[in-house]
């Protein structure tokens, strides 16, 4: 497969993988730690959405599905599929527990991307496409236009019934 096309497709797959799992696991509902709340309030003050801001704050402050996806991709590249992904899931779980998070989102993200990497390997995708793809996917959430991204995440949270009850 063409490398550039592979990276673009991997970025899209990674984006949906981590955004859907994180939203489903309730990241937009409430800030897990104080830092996430500060980020959420700051995003709202700049014209963003509070639930989307909490989502962005939470993925900064503890390893959620975004970190699970990235670490599992790296581990699959370095160690192999599926052992790397399974080892990454354990490490992400301990990282989660240390960061005051029960660990469902991170572990689910790591396991799901391991399955995806395994399945897409049959059509020519390599784990390194997913490493670059995940970095690009996080860039669209945190780096390019944070307030706009937070509004999109807020709308998604509303659709999935995970919108924050805080004001």
């Amino acid at each position, binding site marked *: 497969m063409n490398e550039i096309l592979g990276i673009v497709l991997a970025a899209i797959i990674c984006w949906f993988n981590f955004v859907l799992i994180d939203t489903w696991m309730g990241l937009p509902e409430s800030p897990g730690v104080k830092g996430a709340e500060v980020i959420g309030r700051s995003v709202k003050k700049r014209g963003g959405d509070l639930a989307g801001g909490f989502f962005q704050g939470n993925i900064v402050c503890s390893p959620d599905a975004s970190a699970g996806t990235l670490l599992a991709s790296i581990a699959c590249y370095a160690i192999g599929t599926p*052992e790397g992904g*399974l080892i990454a899931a*354990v490490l992400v779980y301990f990282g989660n527990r240390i960061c005051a998070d*029960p660990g*469902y989102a991170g572990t689910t993200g790591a396991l799901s991307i391991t399955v995806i990497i395994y399945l897409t390997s049959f059509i020519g995708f390599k784990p390194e496409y997913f490493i670059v793809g995940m970095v690009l996917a996080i860039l669209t959430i945190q780096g390019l236009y944070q307030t706009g991204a937070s509004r999109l995440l807020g709308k998604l949270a509303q659709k999935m019934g995970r919108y924050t009850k805080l004001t």
Partner: protein
Amino acid sequence: MIIHANVFSYIIALGVALILGLVLRLPLLPDKPMRDSWTISAVFPTAVLAIGFYAMLYELGYQGYIVALITGIITALFAKFILEKLVPRPESEESP
């Protein structure tokens, strides 16, 4: 890429951890709503840890059904008696 690990070993590690976890009176699933629950249950994290630990041993060169069986047993004991002490739940959660 082909899966080169023995799938049965993973199933043994997962199954043994799950069954021994239930014997040790861990709940099958966390309390609801699961996404906010800190309960250590047989499915999560015990079964997930079991396949992860077996993957680590596999990569270190220790392979086979016996290794998978022992991994499952040790993981269930670890989850029941040590995990909560090693990575405790946060002491005070701020009420929103």
